[in-house]
C-alpha cells in the first residue's frame, strides 16, 4: 500500500466532480430517453450515438426557456459540463445550452450569409429608405392563411383605410416558400405600391428559414419601394429583417409603422385649418391696419386741409383785390379829373372857336337872309295865307297883299297886273 492517505468515497467522488466540472464541452447526440415530469426540478434525458450513452439533466427553468420539446430520436446539440451525482455514483452532463442540432448548423449558415451580405454593404443604414407618410397603396406579402394576415388587414383598416392593400398570398415555410416569397415581392413591386409589408407569424427557427434565404434577401433589396418586415414574434432577426428598410417586431407592428393613424391625420388637417385661418386673419389685419393708417392721414381725415391752402390763396388774393381796387379807382378818378379838366379847357377853346364861327356864320346868314335883302330895299309880298308871292300871274286886281319891308309892313290891294316884260 502507498503512503497516500486513503480517501473516502465521498471525497474521491468530490475530487472527480471538481475535475470534471472545470471543462465545458459541446456534445451532439441523439435523444434516447426523456423524462420530463412537472414538479421535478430538472428535465432528464439521455444522449446517445449508438455506442455510448450520456445521461443529461437540465434545470427546469432553463429548459423551459428554450421552448423546445424533446422527442425520442431528435438530434440535439448540448453545451455544458460533466459532473458526478455522488448519491448515485453516476456521471451526468449538466446542460447549460440546448438546441436542435439541425438548428445549430442552420444558424451557422445564416451567420455566414449575413456576414457576406453585410460585407457587400447591403445592411447599411444609408441604404434604408424613408417611408411615405400617406401611402396610397400598400403591398402585403404574407401567408393568406392564419392570423397574421388578418391582424395586418385589421390594423391597416383601423388606422388608415384610405390606402388600398395589394396582397400577394404566398407560402411562408417549407419547400417552395422561397420561390413564392420572391414571386410575391416581385408582383407587388410591379403592381405599383408605395411600400411593402413582408411578414409572417411566429414559428420555429426552421420555420423561419425561408426569410434567411439569399434569394429572398436579394428580392427585398431589389424592391423599388421600401420594405418593412414583421417576421415572427421572437427576438431572432432574420436576414430579410437585416436588409429591409425597416424592421418591426411583429406583423401588427409592421402595419402600424407603415400607416398613419386616422387621428393623426385628422389632427394634422385641423392644424392646417387653424394655420390657414391665422394666415388669412393676419393678412386682413394687416390690410385693415394699412387702410386705417391711411385714413388717419390729414389729407383724408380733413379734406378741407387740401383746399385750405388754395382757399387761403383765394382769400388773400381777394383781399389784395379789394385793396387794389379803390387805389385803382382813385387813380382812375384822378385820371378822369385830369382828363375832364383837359377836356374842359380844350372844350371851352373849341366852344370859343365854334362860337366865333357861329357868329361869323350868323353874320353871313344874316347877309343871306331875306331880311338882309330887305335891308337893301327889296320887299316881300305875301298873300292872305302868308305865302310869299313870286309871280304876278298869281295876282288878280282887287287881291289883298301883305308887303314886308325891312322895317314894317303894309296891307295893299292889287290895282292892275302886267305880265309884259317877263
Amino acid at each position: 500500500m502507498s503512503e497516500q492517505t486513503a480517501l473516502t468515497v465521498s471525497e474521491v467522488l468530490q475530487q472527480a466532480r471538481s475535475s470534471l466540472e472545470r471543462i465545458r464541452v459541446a456534445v451532439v447526440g441523439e435523444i434516447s430517453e426523456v423524462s420530463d415530469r412537472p414538479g421535478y426540478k430538472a428535465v432528464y434525458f439521455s444522449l446517445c450515438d449508438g455506442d455510448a450513452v450520456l445521461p443529461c439533466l437540465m434545470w427546469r427553468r432553463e429548459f423551459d426557456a428554450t421552448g423546445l420539446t424533446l422527442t425520442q430520436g431528435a438530434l440535439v446539440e448540448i453545451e455544458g459540463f460533466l459532473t458526478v451525482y455522488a448519491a448515485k455514483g453516476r456521471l451526468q452532463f449538466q446542460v447549460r445550452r440546448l438546441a436542435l442540432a439541425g438548428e445549430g448548423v442552420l444558424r451557422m449558415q445564416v451567420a455566414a450569409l449575413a456576414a457576406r451580405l453585410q460585407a457587400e454593404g447591403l445592411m447599411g443604414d444609408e441604404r434604408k429608405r424613408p417611408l411615405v407618410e400617406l401611402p396610397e397603396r400598400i403591398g402585403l406579402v404574407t401567408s393568406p392563411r392564419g392570423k397574421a394576415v388578418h391582424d395586418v388587414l385589421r390594423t391597416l383598416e383601423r388606422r388608415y383605410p384610405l390606402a388600398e392593400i395589394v396582397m400577394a398570398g404566398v407560402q411562408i415555410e417549407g419547400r417552395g416558400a422561397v420561390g413564392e416569397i420572391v414571386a410575391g415581392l416581385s408582383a407587388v413591386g410591379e403592381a405599383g405600391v408605395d411600400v411593402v409589408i413582408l411578414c409572417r407569424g411566429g414559428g420555429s427557427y426552421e420555420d423561419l428559414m425561408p426569410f434567411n434565404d439569399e434569394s429572398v434577401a436579394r428580392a427585398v433589396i431589389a424592391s423599388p419601394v421600401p420594405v418593412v418586415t414583421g417576421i415572427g414574434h421572437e427576438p431572432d432577426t432574420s436576414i430579410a429583417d437585416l436588409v429591409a428598410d425597416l424592421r418591426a417586431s411583429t406583423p401588427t407592428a409592421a402595419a402600424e409603422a407603415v400607416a398613419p393613424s386616422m387621428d393623426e391625420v385628422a389632427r394634422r388637417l385641423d392644424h392646417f385649418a387653424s394655420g390657414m385661418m391665422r394666415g388669412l386673419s393676419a393678412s386682413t389685419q394687416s390690410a385693415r391696419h394699412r387702410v386705417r393708417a391711411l385714413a388717419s392721414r390729414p389729407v383724408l381725415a380733413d379734406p378741407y386741409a387740401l383746399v385750405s391752402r388754395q382757399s387761403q390763396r383765394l382769400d388773400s388774393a381777394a383781399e389784395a383785390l379789394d385793396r387794389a381796387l379803390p387805389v385803382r379807382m382813385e387813380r382812375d378818378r384822378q385820371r378822369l379829373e385830369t382828363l375832364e379838366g383837359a377836356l374842359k379847357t380844350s372844350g371851352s377853346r373849341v366852344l370859343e372857336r365854334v362860337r366865333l364861327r357861329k357868329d361869323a356864320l350868323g353874320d353871313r346868314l344874316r347877309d343871306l337872309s331875306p331880311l338882309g335883302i330887305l335891308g337893301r330895299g327889296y320887299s316881300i309880298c305875301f298873300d292872305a295865307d302868308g305865302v310869299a308871292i313870286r309871280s304876278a300871274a298869281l295876282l288878280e286886281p282887287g287881291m289883298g297883299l301883305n308887303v314886308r319891308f325891312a322895317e314894317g309892313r303894309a296891307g295893299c290891294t292889287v290895282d292892275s297886273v302886267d305880265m309884259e316884260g317877263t
Partner: protein
Amino acid sequence: MSEEDKEREETQVAEMRFSEAVAELESVVRDLESGTLDLEDSIERYERGVALLEVCRSKLEDAQQRVTTLMGELEDEQSSPDASSDASGE
C-alpha cells in the same frame, strides 16, 4: 374666377389623390402663414385651402379599405382547411 372655372377647379380638387391634396394644403398654409400675399391672393388661397380641406376630410370619413389580391386566396380567419374559403379579397 368664372363659374366655369370654379366648377372645373372643384372637380379637379375632388379627383385629387388624398396625399396630393394634403401636400397642396400644406403649401397653402405655408403661403398664408408667410404673410407675403396681398389681400386678394390671401382670400383666394384660403378658399382653395378650404376646398382641399373639405375633400380631405370627406375622403377620410368615407374611406373604406380595398384589398386587391395578386396571388393566393385570402382565407377567413376561422375557416378550417376543408371548408370552402370565402375569397374576401378582390
